[in-house]
């Protein structure tokens, strides 16, 4: 039974298991392209969990990319090729370029019993971007 805490743990473990690979691919991308890779949200609808059900779902936006670049999730993370892996949360990669330098951040979101939870992991100079699990209002 995935309680909120169990769901957060599940997501944390999933992200931790993939973070090193993602970080290495980001550094490789930057070496080759001069910038980090931006990934739009992996899901149209965020995975929705309840105390009685695991809402993990395959990403249905893995072939979508920003209008100003060509690389989607499938290009950078082919292991998650459509339908092959259940993701416990929606993931988005934001890239930034500011006065302190370049970096990127993973924005991790899931629903539990109808409430939205978000965590941000920063990789780069703007360390204040990292946020613990936070209950987040739905909508803009």
């Amino acid at each position, binding site marked *: 039974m995935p309680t909120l805490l169990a769901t957060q743990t599940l997501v944390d473990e999933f992200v931790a298991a993939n973070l090193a690979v993602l970080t290495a691919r980001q550094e490789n991308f930057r070496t080759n392209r001069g910038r980090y890779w931006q990934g*739009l949200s992996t899901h149209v609808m965020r995975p929705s969990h309840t105390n009685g059900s695991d809402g993990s779902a395959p990403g249905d936006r893995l072939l979508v990319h*920003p209008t*100003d670049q060509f690389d989607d999730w499938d290009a950078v993370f082919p292991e998650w090729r459509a339908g092959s892996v259940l993701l416990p949360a929606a993931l*988005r990669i934001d890239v*930034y370029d500011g*006065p302190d330098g370049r970096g990127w951040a993973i924005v991790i979101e899931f629903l539990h019993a109808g409430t939205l939870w978000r965590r941000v992991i920063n990789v780069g100079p703007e360390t204040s971007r990292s946020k613990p699990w936070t209950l987040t*209002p739905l*909508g803009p």
Partner: protein
Amino acid sequence: MLLTDGLISNWKLEEVSGTRNDAHGTNHLTDNNTVGQAVGKLGFCGDFVAANVEWLSRASNASLQSGDIPLTVAAWVKLTTKTGYSEIALKDDNSTAREYGIYYDQPTDRFGFLLSSDGSSVVIELADALGPPSAGVWYYVIGWHDDVANTINIQVNNGGIDSASHATGILAGGADFTIGALQGGGGPADAQIDSISLWKRVLTGHEKTRLYGAGFGLEYPFSGPSFQQRTYRPAPYRPGIAR
């Protein structure tokens, strides 16, 4: 009084990419997800694509924080589409550190100015005097908090002022200052945004008229003549020559 008096920051958004510099202060902005550049109202502008979740940000600091003080936020805005919220210039995390900001309110089809005195709930004044803005048209949007009259106000294109009572001030919170989205990327703008200014004072009617410049605008450092001064200066009188 000069238009630079009480001015905290002005962002011209003339850069192609990367850091957008503060022309007046030191609040240089970080580029999130590669904000584009386009021909703007005054030179170039930031071109924000909602589908790409693009925005500019600066971590909170004392110069950007408000409180129960006079505050004015202004920007030139051209909506690309009106299919969703377009956050324009704000200090708002959409959570517990909300402060102030101007934005396009899609459900009501109005520009709006919001304030929060507790960081969570907001008071919103909509630009009803303008009515629904059109996509593809530049507008000069000014929102301000008057701490003496205790009002929240918004004015577009130097037109009618929409105003309401607001006596509880503004939270001095820790949210990022952002252009083009809320902190973290919520409500991404599908718009072009240019010449954003933040003052810690209330502008006079004459000053707002000068900034609008009869639709031509006035670029920082706001020292040039207004459009009206440039246009209506009479030619010198010369006897015998018809004017």
